[in-house]
């Protein structure tokens, strides 16, 4: 299969390392900025919800963490697939870096959700609620992925085996998303991610979306940082890394 040049460039560790080095500050700062703006706007700018009052403002944290958690899994799976098919070690590096971050975001989603559940559903946790369960299983998938990696000592093997698991696990993502429609869940249906016009007022929607963007940038910032570490770890014998640690530029 013929691949474009940039694709091969993306296979070269030093190139990607430098790329990451250049991108990550932009991502980091813009992410923080967006989050700050979105948070302030959401907490003070946006009007209180006529039903939930002030509690609803968790909507500026919870969905975002949830989205990003799911996105992180997709990133991991896609990277894994690319690495497996074209035997690109770097893709595997991306997948590995994404896993713990994604897990943490999913955890945040669970926690914020639980906190939100107390006032709205009258319970922190509801076993058997499909949305909660499917999201929890997503967390388990991340953990399983990490556990599987941990039990191989040959990294190359670990890469390719865990990639297969990641790809298969993708089926869970649509289940999470549609769980609220397929089963009668306590969780409300899609109010923002709806194809027709969103069921929430613009004054709430804008900060919501700002937060989404902010969290997404934030995620990729973390990803790039971990990726850099992972690359150095994997290439520690390579000359450019030696130069790097000895102060030189790759």
């Amino acid at each position, binding site marked *: 299969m013929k691949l474009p040049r940039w694709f091969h460039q993306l296979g070269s560790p030093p190139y990607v390392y430098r790329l990451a080095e250049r991108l990550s500050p932009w991502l980091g700062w813009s992410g923080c900025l967006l989050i700050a703006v979105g948070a302030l706007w959401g907490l003070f700018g946006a009007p209180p919800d006529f039903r939930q009052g002030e509690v609803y403002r968790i909507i500026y944290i919870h969905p975002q963490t949830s989205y990003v958690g799911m996105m992180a899994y997709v990133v991991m799976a896609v990277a894994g697939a690319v690495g*497996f098919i074209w035997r690109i070690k770097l893709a595997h590096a991306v997948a590995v870096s994404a896993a713990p971050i994604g897990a943490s975001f999913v955890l945040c989603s669970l926690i914020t959700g639980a906190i939100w559940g107390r006032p709205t559903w009258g319970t922190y946790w509801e076993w058997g609620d*499909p949305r909660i*369960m*499917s999201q929890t*299983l*997503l967390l*388990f*998938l991340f*953990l*399983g992925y990490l*556990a*599987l990696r941990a*039990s*191989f000592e040959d990294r190359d*093997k670990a890469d*390719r*085996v865990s990639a*297969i*698991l990641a*790809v*298969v*696990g993708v*089926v*869970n993502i649509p*289940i999470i998303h549609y769980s609220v429609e397929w*089963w009668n869940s306590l969780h409300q249906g899609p109010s923002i991610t709806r194809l027709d016009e969103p069921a929430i007022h613009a004054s709430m929607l804008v900060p919501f979306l700002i937060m989404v963007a902010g969290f997404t940038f934030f995620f990729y910032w973390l990803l790039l940082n971990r990726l850099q570490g992972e690359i150095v770890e994997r290439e520690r014998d390579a000359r450019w890394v030696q130069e790097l640690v000895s102060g030189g530029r790759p």
Partner: protein
Amino acid sequence: MGAFRAIVLRDLRVAFRRWSEVANPFVFFAVVVALFPLSLSPSAPELRSIGVGVVWIAALLSSLLALDGLFRNDAEDGSLEQLLLSPVPFGVTVLAKIAAHWLVSVLPLVLLVPLSALSFRLPASGLPTLAFALLLATPSLSVLLALGAALTVSLKRGGAIIGLLILPLAAPLLIFGTRATDFALHGEPVAGPLYLLAAMAAAAVSLGPPAVAAALKVGLE
């Protein structure tokens, strides 16, 4: 096709020669299903409402028990290498082994359904659906478990980690299966979830083997 038959037959033979291990999962299933009611303060309606779920989980877990030797035995005595090198497409081999595993250690569970119904006082009306749903769900389950076994084939006994990897993926099966059965018990139409299970089975059986084969190849290196 001849190879497919040969592999299935071989695995069946091996299984029946070491049947004491093969039988263990069923004993586990029986014990769970028989004992569970005892662990409750018995009251028929409640029993019934949880019975379905327990049967499904017992089925899931006991097939997990049956699984460990699926590929590891062949890997350790070297015959998996030979299968990989043989002119038979490896996907076919994998499918054959999964089929054998399903025949030996999953299919019989369906036969134990009446027993379970008995111990949970399920109305007879639900049984056919329960059995049918199990029939539809278990192939996908076998494929999933096979995947877990393949992922861990180069490790020591898989056991817990396989469960850790696969049970999350198996959850949908569990959900739809129990729903179908619940519907049946309450006389509602069951077509919906059953179709879903069938679809999953089709997907698993068609997409699964290549993934399993890939995992095994990596594992054998």
